């Protein structure tokens, strides 16, 4: 066993960190996470600017095949997420770069790849994911948005919900039902791509708990999409969604974000005096921050092990579930801890009274993004129980 990075990796990782450190200096005040990208015009512009900087360096195509302009391996992609995560810098479209591109590499035709990969690589076209519906969340295969073929087009009708960034994204990848009579609900689903400006697409905001505009409901009324925009085969869309093995799923971005949070809390506790003593001397605070650090180092070690397994093509879905659950819940605890250490100021929103620009108050609410979206933690635990531990599955 060897946890050591090669010299080359160390060098590259440093470069990612240096560039992100520079980009972080241009961060709009109060910017953080996904909501930061989608809530304000300023945040969105910053997201696009960072994407351009990364694109120029070829950093949006890490791990892609060379013929599509790819460079490096999944390891490089991981170091990149560590850097963006640590500095809370956007620019890597989680939908386009992280989800759609690997899906296209794994399943799409040459034509689709040629048409859609270049604008992902250049950071110009941003994507959203139209999967969930009001009655199809965890049970995604129950989705009912219909696509009826007319000549070389599909006519799509239905409603999507919780569509993150749909009010800003240029294009969408959607799941629709093309065969309502299939014998299993996973059959008869098709994965397709369309322009968010297509007539019949209506995006209405749903505000997140903290009042930010993160996600939306999207109504699709007679939306016409060319048949050539199908990824994979018609009715085989479920299989397309299951190509997760190709995704970078270490959660190292979130984990590195937490490293930074701990550093900031440590600095704060060293510098802030209560009754003449630095907070850092308070044994309760010492113990809790130390516990957070132990948890975090554990998460980090597990994440590296998952990256390693993935780079050998040995990662199982339940491996990724484990690190998702552990790191997501750790972020929730970290936000709690942050608000607690700040005392009454922990509840203050970004304003002149806030500490850390209201970061912990925000994440006290936003940690649900990690624990509910992309498969809830209950669902992840089911996956671990069934596929990881081989426990019987109740019908």
């Amino acid at each position, binding site marked *: 066993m060897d946890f050591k990075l090669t010299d080359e990796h160390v060098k590259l990782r440093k470069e990612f960190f240096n560039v992100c450190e520079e980009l972080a200096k241009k961060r709009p005040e109060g910017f953080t996470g996904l909501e930061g990208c989608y809530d304000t015009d300023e945040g969105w512009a910053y997201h696009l600017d960072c994407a351009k900087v990364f694109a120029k360096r070829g950093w949006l195509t890490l791990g892609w095949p060379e013929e599509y302009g790819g460079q490096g391996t999944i390891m490089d992609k991981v170091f990149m997420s560590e850097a963006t995560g640590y500095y809370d810098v956007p620019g890597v479209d989680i939908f386009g770069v992280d989800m759609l591109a690997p899906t296209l590499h794994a399943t799409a035709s040459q034509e689709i790849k040629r048409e859609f990969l270049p604008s992902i690589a250049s950071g110009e076209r941003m994507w959203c994911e139209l999967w969930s519906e009001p009655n199809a969340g965890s049970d995604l295969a129950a989705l009912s948005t219909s696509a009826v073929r007319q000549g070389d087009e599909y006519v799509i009708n239905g409603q999507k919900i919780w569509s993150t960034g749909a009010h800003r994204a240029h294009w969408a990848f959607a799941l629709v039902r093309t065969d309502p009579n299939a014998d299993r609900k996973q059959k008869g689903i098709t994965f397709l791509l369309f322009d968010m400006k297509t007539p019949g697409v209506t995006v209405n905001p749903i505000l997140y708990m903290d009042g930010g505009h993160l996600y939306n409901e999207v109504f699709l009324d007679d939306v016409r999409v060319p048949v050539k925009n199908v990824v994979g085969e018609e009715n085989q869309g479920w299989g397309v969604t299951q190509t997760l093995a190709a995704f970078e799923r270490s959660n190292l971005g979130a984990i590195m974000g937490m490293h930074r949070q701990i550093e900031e809390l440590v600095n704060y506790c060293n510098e802030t005096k209560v009754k003449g003593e630095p907070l850092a001397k308070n044994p*309760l605070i010492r113990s809790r921050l130390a516990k957070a650090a132990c948890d975090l180092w554990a998460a980090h070690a597990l994440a590296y092990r998952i990256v390693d397994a993935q780079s050998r093509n040995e990662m199982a879905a339940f491996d990724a579930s484990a690190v998702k659950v552990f790191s997501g819940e750790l972020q929730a605890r970290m936000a709690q801890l942050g608000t607690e250490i700040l005392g009454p100021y922990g509840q203050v929103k970004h304003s002149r009274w806030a500490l850390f620009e209201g970061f912990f108050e925000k994440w006290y609410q936003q940690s649900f993004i990690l624990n509910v979206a992309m498969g809830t933690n209950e669902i992840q635990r089911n996956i671990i129980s069934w596929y990881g531990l081989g426990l019987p599955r109740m019908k």
Partner: protein
Amino acid sequence: MDITFTEEQEMLRKSAGDFLTAECPKTKARELEEDEKGYSPELWQKMAGLGWMGLAIPEEYEGMGMTFQDLTVLLEAMGNNVLPGPFSCTVVGGAFAIIEAGTAEQKKDLLPRIANGEAILTTALLEPGSTCYDASGVNLKATAQGDNFVLSGTKVFVEMANVADYMICAARTKEGSSDEDGISLFIVDAKAPGISCEVIPTIAFDKLCEVRFENVAVPKKNMLGEMDKGWPIMQSIMQKGAIAKSAESVGGMQASVDMTVAYCKDRVQYDRPIGAFQALQHIMADMWIITQTSKYLVYQAAWMESEGLPCAMEVAMAKAYVNENYKWVTERAVSLHGGIGTSREHDTGLYYRRAKAADTAFGDTDFQRELVAKKIGLIS
């Protein structure tokens, strides 16, 4: 022993619940978060009409003469419905302080007005830089000048100061032999010249304010309690405040459990109500257990306070316990609702945010546990 509510309390609980559900639906609670005042004057008048502000004020001052425990029954109903506004700070912080420590004149002047819904009160204690409810944090200066004291300094996290008529303000009148010594309390006219107030944006939008005092003249007769000996009164206000907040919180916990159970019976995924999944059943069973234990711990503390028994430890225990568990229950409630629970329009998040706000009010968990640690005999 009889650990049940009296018939009167049951009636109060029921009628308060019905009234609040009708008059202050959660949509309104959320609207009031964005409202500049943060409460509804109309609703306030209706509540006064029901005698709520005067519930525990003696009859001679136009109140109903009921007990502190009766009041906590009402507070629990308010927490269950997340009623925003200055009820608790007016009644628990204001009226009780005056009942306990006020002069005959102060009582005659203020208590009937509180009972009739004509005066809003609040407590000004915390200051910038002080992170806990500790006497050492009181540095705002009050200096005697003729018939007045002149107050200068800044208070923060003053609940509803934006609409308050009076503030009970802790000030330092001398450098005493200890932190506690030398603190005096003043009933300050919130509109007096030299006072400026700004609302601090907080997670629960509960109108916690920064209040600046620039040479604010307060007549000497408006001192509450004795000169330099105000701290024990403030402690008593804080102790009642902690119980009141805990009572509201257990109301919110129950609402979160009820909402989640109802949703899980109703929401279908994988062709069955999600409540059929044992993974969720056990979470809800735990939410219920924790709510039960929290309630009875709070009821006990409220009863002791109401009976005038020494209960500093029991109150601190209740607050510490409820702090942690209200946050936990509401976090589970949001999670079990999935996407909808994370949205602004849904009620679970409203409780989740309130739970965070309740946590620091009147002393956070560490602060309360320290009190408990001393009381159970740990040397320090």
